[in-house]
């Protein structure tokens, strides 16, 4: 499994997608200047832009690496040669690939986080904020963003195991991300007076998807990071456990499907 993980990371580093993302990361250089457009919250805008850019880049990585990593190997028949000629089991292979992409996402988040921290710090030197920055909150926001995208990678892997082209893993992952980011808003809407009046069928369908799809709003700690709002440690722990359980379910399902899949 370790050798698959190492090979995955090496493969990602050679990938053009990664180079493109590094190029987009140059936008961090403009954050201190762009933040000065704010009327009253220059540093807060620097944090907003840094976290948004990190989140966006991690989303691209999760969708493209998660969606193509496994599929590409199958398409090139690399999976068949590895699994046929070595004692590596299909489950180990899948977990190795997943761990490789996940580790790479964490490493990228760390790198982007350091660059983002530098952009925020340099802005805060010139424009001291009204409220002191809570660096731990910013760190937590980046970390939970990484967890969110690792969960998304798990979704992409599950879709890759049943797909014969890259369309389903890529677009299915994007659709899951969009839906998973909006489910909490929809759920909250159903709790309002207006939402209560909607037909029961619509509400139960929405509720079904609310529980089925990953709830990405739990990972959004941007407000806590930007405005130095205290974090709820209990909530963070719950979110962490939620991620572990959800990823485990996805990977187990993916493994079951992958074992039965015809690779020729």
């Amino acid at each position, binding site marked *: 499994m370790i050798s698959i993980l190492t090979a995955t990371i090496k493969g990602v580093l050679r990938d053009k997608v990664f180079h493109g993302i590094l190029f987009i990361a140059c936008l961090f250089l403009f954050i201190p200047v762009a933040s*000065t*457009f*704010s*009327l*009253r*919250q*220059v540093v*807060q*805008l620097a944090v*907003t*832009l840094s*976290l*948004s850019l990190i*989140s*966006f880049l991690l989303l691209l990585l999760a969708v493209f690496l998660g969606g193509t990593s496994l599929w590409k190997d199958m398409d090139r028949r690399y999976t068949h040669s590895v699994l046929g000629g070595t004692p590596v089991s299909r489950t180990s292979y899948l977990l190795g690939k997943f761990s490789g992409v996940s580790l790479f996402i964490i490493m990228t988040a760390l790198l982007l986080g350091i660059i983002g921290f530098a952009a925020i710090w340099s802005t805060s030197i010139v424009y001291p904020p*009204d*409220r002191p920055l809570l660096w731990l909150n910013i760190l937590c926001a980046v970390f939970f*963003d990484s967890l*969110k995208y690792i969960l998304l990678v798990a979704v992409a892997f599950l879709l890759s195991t049943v797909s014969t082209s890259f369309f389903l893993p890529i677009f299915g992952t994007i659709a899951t*991300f*969009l839906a998973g*980011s*909006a489910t909490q*808003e*929809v759920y909250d*809407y159903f709790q309002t007076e207006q939402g209560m009046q909607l037909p029961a069928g619509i509400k139960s369908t929405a509720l079904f998807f609310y529980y089925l799809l990953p709830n*990405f*709003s739990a*990972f*959004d700690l*941007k*407000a806590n990071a*930007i*405005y130095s*709002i205290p974090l709820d440690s209990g909530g963070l722990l719950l979110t962490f456990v939620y991620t572990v359980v959800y990823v485990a379910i996805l990977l187990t399902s993916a493994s079951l499907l992958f074992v039965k899949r015809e690779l020729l």
Partner: protein
Amino acid sequence: MKLIAILVILFAVYATLLVPFTQHLQTKPFLEKVGYVPEPLVVKMLAFDQRHAVAAGLIFRVLIYYGTLVEKKRITTTPPDDSSMRAILSVTSRLDPYNMDTYYFAQSLVWDEVKVRETIKLLEYGMRFRDWDFYLPFFAGFNYAFFLKDYKAAATHYTTAARLTGSDLFSRLASRYMYESGQTELAIGYLDAMIKSSRNEAIKKSFETRRSALLEVRRIEMARDRYREQFGRLPALLGELFDQGLLTRPVIDPYGGVFYIESDGTVRSTSKFAGRTENND
């Protein structure tokens, strides 16, 4: 060779097109430029995990629009599309209720009773989130006292501001408001504070224009008070103050209006201290 000639011609056509094209884009109405902004719930769902960045982006677009009007001094001839700007600020407050720029900019647009109620609502909404920030109760307190003459509500907000800052300045302000005296002077003081804390040139300019207008109002009020002392009645027309030598320099409304005195002695301007339209001239 033929292709190169075609390319050169196309570039020439493009260059000719650029000037009117840019002008057309510049003169587009605000709503067309920014586009229709849907209900906050819809925007929130469409923004995914980027709602803070989307809110910052929308505020930025409003600021650019307003800033262009102020910087190019077109504000006296082209009134800003106030309702659209407020609609966007309402959306941004829902997208990111902690964003101070929304409240600060909304407050900078206030200068009449209609807008003030909306702004107070927005500020009171923001206070639920920015519970550490004295600016919001400070703004709300000023709006209640100065525009709505609701001194009880103003005092409540100033007490909150005093609690948050630990300073008795706001308590003193609240008590002064209770006496309903020196309203213009207080407004000038408020604007001085806002100008000092303002970083954005366009907003700063709009505050400075307002302060210039209020300084003129104060000058007329002082002359009016001296007139009342001398003649035991209020002047019916502004001209009487000039006739009696109580005003020497002409009074100029930077918003392009004409000052007048109401029957109860209140000094007003035909501009209502807002950008006037060409039709009103």
